[in-house]
């Protein structure tokens, strides 16, 4: 379910780091909680974000959810496919629906985030508290 080479946050974002560039998206669990995604708002390339800073929003019919930057860096690229097809976030949250690519301030910054196993455990615990 959750790719082992990604890192995760408790705000339900994922980041995959390749050669100092972090690709960022929201997790399967996040899109499921949100429901059908109808709108994604992303920043301009070049914008710098600190870790935990809001870099955009993703909206379903009912809810608006802020996107938190898992690691600090400058936006190198935003996913052009999401403006016309926000539902991609529900269809392929860990793949085609990546949100932004970030040139990381510190290429090792993601090492301190949750591993796939830790994130899955976190999701399981939060679902149990809900039920």
């Amino acid at each position, binding site marked *: 379910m959750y790719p082992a080479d990604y890192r995760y946050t408790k705000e339900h974002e994922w980041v995959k780091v390749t050669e100092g560039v972090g690709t960022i998206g929201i997790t399967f669990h996040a899109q499921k909680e949100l*429901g059908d995604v109808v709108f994604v*708002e992303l920043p301009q390339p070049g914008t710098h974000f600190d870790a935990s800073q809001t870099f955009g929003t993703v909206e379903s*019919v009912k809810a*608006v959810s802020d996107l938190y930057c898992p690691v600090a860096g400058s936006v190198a690229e935003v996913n052009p496919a999401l403006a016309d097809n926000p539902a991609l976030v529900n269809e392929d949250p860990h793949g085609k629906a990546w949100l932004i690519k970030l040139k990381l301030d510190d290429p090792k910054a993601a090492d301190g985030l949750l591993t796939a196993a830790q994130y899955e455990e976190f999701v399981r615990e939060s679902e149990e508290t809900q039920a």
Partner: protein
Amino acid sequence: MATDTQTAPRQTALNAAHRTLKAKMVNFAGWDMPVEYSGIIPEHLAVRTAAGLFDVSHMGEIEIRGPQALDLVQQVACNNAAGLVVGQAQYSALLTEQGTFVDDIVVHKFSDTHYFICVNAANREKDFTHIQAQNRFKAKVNHTSDDYTQLALQGPRAASILQRLTPVDLSAIRTYRFAFGKVCDVRCLIARTGYTGEDGFELYLEPPASEKVWNALLEAGKEDGLIPVGLGARNTLRLESGYALYGHEIDDTTTVWEAKLGWICKLDKGEFTGRAALVAQKEAGVRRKLAGFEMRGRGIARDGYPVLVDGKEYGRVTSGSPAPYLKKNLGLAYIPVGASAVGTRIGIGIRGTTVEAELVPTPFYKRPK
């Protein structure tokens, strides 16, 4: 329907059924209610194109009985119930002395001495107290919310689905009329009413029979595309149809004139609570009016977002959402009368940025005849 503590949300008789269907549950007005099953978009579209089944048992019921039942109804509700025939329902409202809304309601005439009123979940206790306080007619007022499960079967195929389960000739029940009869052998009040903008029925029945009727309806309508629908799509359906929601478009700060609900207020019917204030406001003229808008810029208006008229913040969006059938981002807001013409451009404040919207006619959606 009993609850252990005041803080635990109340459950309808169909709570277990919703959980079996894996509904996403939320606390709505103190009730543990399904917000969506398969998703707000497919549920919304099913109601527009086929049919949807809603559990709306959180809605309240208040009954007024006695020789002077009509006198009390006429005192507390602003529409004219005197012309109703037995078997007829009427959209109306309870008002404060200031002419503002206590609640919007549907009055059903059971007989000359018995009126049955459907009220909003969040307002049931308040409405009951409000009606009782004005009962100088010795009418009998009962709060009977716990005696009823309320289901809504809505959509173009609602009538043909329901007909399979009842001997009652549904074609004889016109819009805003009702009849008593059995649905899969369970005695029901069958009303041709709803809150979606589609043809459909609202059924009132005794709670122990809820699962039987709920399951039978879902089964009977399966091949017609009937699916269960939650409160999420209930809200987008009513917004697309331009219907007011208490706590959003209407509350104790707004009047029927402002909310464009003048058609439910009959000043010529005689005295009723709030009448004097409404006469005065009509003579003075209203300053603001509820208007519908459609987003022109990129962004979705949401409840509570700032509304800018001529660049200045005027009020707040009362309801805003994507509209799944029309595929537009729509909203309702109070606009100064002088700036309320269709075609006027306004601004919606979305996370610190002003995004353009245009006033458009309401209802946004009207079902094909």
